[in-house]
């Protein structure tokens, strides 16, 4: 019961701050709401017993990536009124279409979940993990079942990093 209440409170906060992120006019405030959003997502992880994931969420997203967002936002200094509102190329119809598609998809997932309640809960082969403890389990899964996605993700990050260096520094 307590867990359910906690979940709904945290979920409501996540959604609320999510809305504030896109509705706030001041860019820095928007980034700050994003930080709060990430912190509450971390709280959700704690609720699920995934402390490792929660700590990583705070460390990487709230403490690392968003600091860089803030860095950029402060550097470009968006005190001037945003120009996007007068954008002539704005694809309003396409936007609504995409939003509707996402909504339909979410609805479909919810309906599917109601129809097949067992499938949603079935955990993938937890019993096969020979180690106990949160961190150990994450590590085990990353280096066995999900080794290839893990390596591909790191390759992708490496490529992105090199790309950023090439873009920023024209003469190497």
């Amino acid at each position, binding site marked *: 019961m307590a867990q359910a209440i906690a979940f709904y409170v945290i979920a409501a906060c996540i959604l609320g701050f999510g809305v504030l992120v896109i509705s706030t006019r001041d860019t820095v405030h928007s980034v700050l709401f994003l930080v709060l959003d990430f912190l509450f997502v971390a709280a959700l992880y704690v609720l699920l017993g995934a402390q490792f994931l929660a700590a990583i969420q705070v460390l990487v997203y709230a403490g690392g990536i968003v600091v860089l967002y803030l860095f950029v936002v402060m550097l470009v*200094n968006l*005190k001037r009124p945003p120009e996007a509102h007068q954008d002539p190329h704005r694809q309003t119809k396409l936007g609504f279409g995409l939003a509707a598609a996402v909504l339909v998809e979410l609805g479909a997932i919810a309906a599917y979940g109601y129809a097949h309640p067992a499938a949603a809960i079935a955990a993938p082969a937890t019993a096969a993990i020979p180690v106990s403890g949160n961190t150990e389990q994450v590590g085990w899964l990353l280096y066995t079942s999900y080794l290839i996605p893990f390596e591909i993700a790191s390759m992708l990050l490496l490529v992105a990093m090199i790309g950023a260096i090439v*873009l*920023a520094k*024209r003469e190497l």
Partner: protein
Amino acid sequence: MSTERAVHHGAMFDTDELVINMGPQHPSTHGVLRVVLRLDGEKVVDCDVVIGYLHRGIEKLSENRNWTQIVLLTDRMDYVAAATSNVGYCETVEKLLQLEVPRRARYVRTILCELQRIASHCLWVGTHAMDIGAMTVFLYAFRERELILDLFEEFCGARLTYNSMRIGGLPQDIPPGWAKKVLEFCDIMTQKIDEYEELLTHNRIWLERTKGIGVIGGEEAIGLGLCGPALRGSGVARDVRKDEPYAAYDEMDFDVPVGTAGDTYDRYLVRMEEFRQSLRIIRQATEGLPEGPIVGKVPRLIKPAAGETYHAIESPKGELGYFIVSDGKSTNPYRFRVRPPSFCNLQGLRRLVRGHLIADVVALIGSIDIVLGEVDR
């Protein structure tokens, strides 16, 4: 944020320039210097040096005071080295009067000038190190400066603005036992200089912060009118004490240290060596102090014949020159003009800081060693 916005093209991303005011109220501008910096990130694109916040009109004021009263005004120019300003002025007037100064007075002047140089360099090494973040050197240097101030207090009763010189000689003879105290001070100071150097000279961070910062070649330094240690750091062995000896410097044996690279570190090394050379001069002058009168044959009413003269001495900051015109009729100078070394050195700041970072600006202001009282007068 920045109201003045200029856009840099050429780089792939357009960047804005940030204009910030360093001073006149800033911990590291040594008084009331104002430097307007144009920054690209932290890099200084250009800078404007704004002076005049401490202007008291000393030159004009001097034209309305009689010759003896002006000594006291010269105290207020380079207030951390008042004695050298006094000596410079008195010698200029003596040159105008063609007055012979007794040997003993010239020796005492030499001792005072060199003590003053050490005191001024103490203040410089302290604040320069403090600007770069080494706070302890500041306290150490002030501890030793205190000893010099005590010596001056015993000699003339004042600790900052001494009014320690009279035209034609000294206001009074040195107190008994003073010479011994000076020699004792020399022994203490010799050790303390090593102590400062231990904290800075081979310190890795200090080297990284000062080497290659504000490099200026000898030719260019002369072109900008730099003088004193700032010029000698660039390898030009110009020292008024050697080239046009005054007081008793022609009888002293000392070296003029010069740098090679012309960067902040070399200017630092030059001044550190000057500490030692000054001590050498003080020892020679104190041990060889001749007996005799302390004042020359000064007329009761000082009224030089019509004419003009320029006389320069080597103040701790560089060449301090006085240009004085007398009309031969009144008891005031007709024209009184000072060539202040700090002012001339400050001209180089704009050239030195361009392309460096904000942190280097602070180091460079320290490295040219300015006193705003002398810049603005």
